[in-house]
């Protein structure tokens, strides 16, 4: 399902002393089957943008098209009733610290909560819940236990399973790895990578982690003070190091490493982009051999 954002502006608490413009004329497209990362500072409007994509927030002006549904901003909206439920069934949302949303007596019940809300029959919901718990590597011994007995990382994975069980076409992730250890982070990111590659799900991820953004996405969207600064492939975006630094963001560590190395040995800055360890090693070899200008 394609999602298109057209000139969307969002103002929080209009008409009060707390009024604040969180999005300013943002236009961006999330094509079906793509993996997009939204990066930017805290308070740059990343999460606000993400919450528009499944109708949790509605635009003040502008519009959002998701599949065959259009969310209009401003006065045009009130006239017709929007079928949010249909939209949210197709666009899943994993919130920041999703473990805070667990509430059921058992893991299975909690994961089945979403599908049941969307009208999936009880036994089918149970089947999906089991499949999703397996997908996030929760051993079946835990399935009948309370979610509050689990560790933080396990709770996170159960909460993610709860969103996956709805089988959304588009999955929005708001900092899915915040507060996890490196291993937990890799597990979660590999899971989403697999969902993207094997099941062709569209993934939209809000993140602070430049390496994750570079490694996994097809498109990187950079936000600053509610405006969209740039959008493009990771190679395009992270080659504009100065523009990123101006708004207080850094390139992935691999790119920084290559740039520093080039500086140190006095060769011109390479134009290549390397995000994985292997690519970085190749780039370093080329730099040391002195033919970096050609790569």
């Amino acid at each position, binding site marked *: 399902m394609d999602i298109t954002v057209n000139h969307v502006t969002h103002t929080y608490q209009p008409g009060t002393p707390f009024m604040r413009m969180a999005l300013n004329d943002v236009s961006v497209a999330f094509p079906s089957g793509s993996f997009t990362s939204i990066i930017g500072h805290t308070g740059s409007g990343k999460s606000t943008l993400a919450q528009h994509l499944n109708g949790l927030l509605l635009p003040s002006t502008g519009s959002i098209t998701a599949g065959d549904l259009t969310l209009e901003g401003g006065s045009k909206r009130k006239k017709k009733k929007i079928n949010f439920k249909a939209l949210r069934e197709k666009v899943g949302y994993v919130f920041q610290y999703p473990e805070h949303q667990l509430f059921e007596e058992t893991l299975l019940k909690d994961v089945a909560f979403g599908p049941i*809300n969307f009208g999936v029959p009880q036994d089918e919901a149970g089947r999906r819940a089991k499949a999703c718990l397996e997908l996030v590597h929760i051993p079946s011994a835990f399935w009948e236990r309370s979610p509050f007995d689990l560790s933080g990382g396990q709770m996170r994975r159960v909460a993610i399973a709860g969103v996956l069980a709805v089988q959304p076409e588009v999955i929005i992730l708001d900092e899915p790895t915040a507060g996890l250890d490196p291993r937990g982070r890799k597990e979660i990111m590999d899971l989403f990578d697999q969902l993207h590659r094997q099941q062709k799900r569209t993934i939209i991820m809000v993140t602070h982690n430049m390496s994750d953004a570079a490694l996994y996405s097809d498109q990187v969207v950079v936000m600053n003070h509610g405006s969209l600064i740039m959008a493009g492939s990771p190679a395009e975006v992270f080659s504009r190091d100065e523009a990123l630094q101006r708004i207080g963001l850094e390139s992935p560590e691999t790119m920084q490493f290559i740039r520093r190395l080039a500086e140190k040995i006095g060769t011109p800055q390479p134009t290549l982009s390397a995000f994985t360890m292997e690519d970085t090693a190749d780039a370093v070899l080329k730099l040391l051999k002195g033919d970096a200008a050609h790569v």
Partner: protein
Amino acid sequence: MFNLVIGQYVPMESLVHRLDPRSKLISMFLFVIIVFLANNWLSYGLLILFCLASITASKLPFQFIYRGLRSVFFIVFLTFILNLFFTNGGLLLFSWGWLHIYLNGLIQSIFISFRILVIIVITTLLTLTTSPIEITDGLESLLHPLKRIKLPVHEFALMMSISLRFIPTLLEETEKIIKAQAARGSDFTTGSIKSRFKAVVPLLVPLFVSAFKRAEELAMAMEARGYHGDEGRTKLHRLVWNNRDTVLLLILAIMTIALILFRY
């Protein structure tokens, strides 16, 4: 959804903001008491005038206070209706079956509505112009004499400031969990009463869990920073009583006398 302004401090620069919290607290309590002295148009006019003057002096936009009042309009309306039908006497204005509306009832219900409204406006104004910390400092200082009879004044003040401090946090958290559950297809706004009631469970459980967790973390963080009650504890912000505070109390005193005189 969260247009409840009560308990939400708006940091601004104004005469009302600068007043000592103690004078504001005393005035508010006095005001709430003397509201009950009012029994005619003149005295209600005086009370409303005081409210309008306070709002003007606080520089808060009227519209903002109105927004906060919207959530209590139902209560005002309900008391209005109840008083309208259950107060007898005076001219019969309207009657239908067993329902009767008398002139006294109409006047009485208008008065009562104004009574509730002015009380809410003044208390809202206090919390809008006074930070929770100022309020508790003020209360603690006002109640200090009660420590003589072994009342845990400091602990009460602390409990109050913590509760006030966490109202916005909990509201934010509630909003977040509502969104998270809505994204999982939970529906709070449509369906039968029973299904709506059931939809609240996925909201309340996470809210309580996080509130308890937060309380525990806060207690530990306070202990880690050496909190040990008020024995030998100094204040970061000393309260200062200025002339304007005395003037405010004088105004309230004059109003009290005026209201007593207007009664007869």
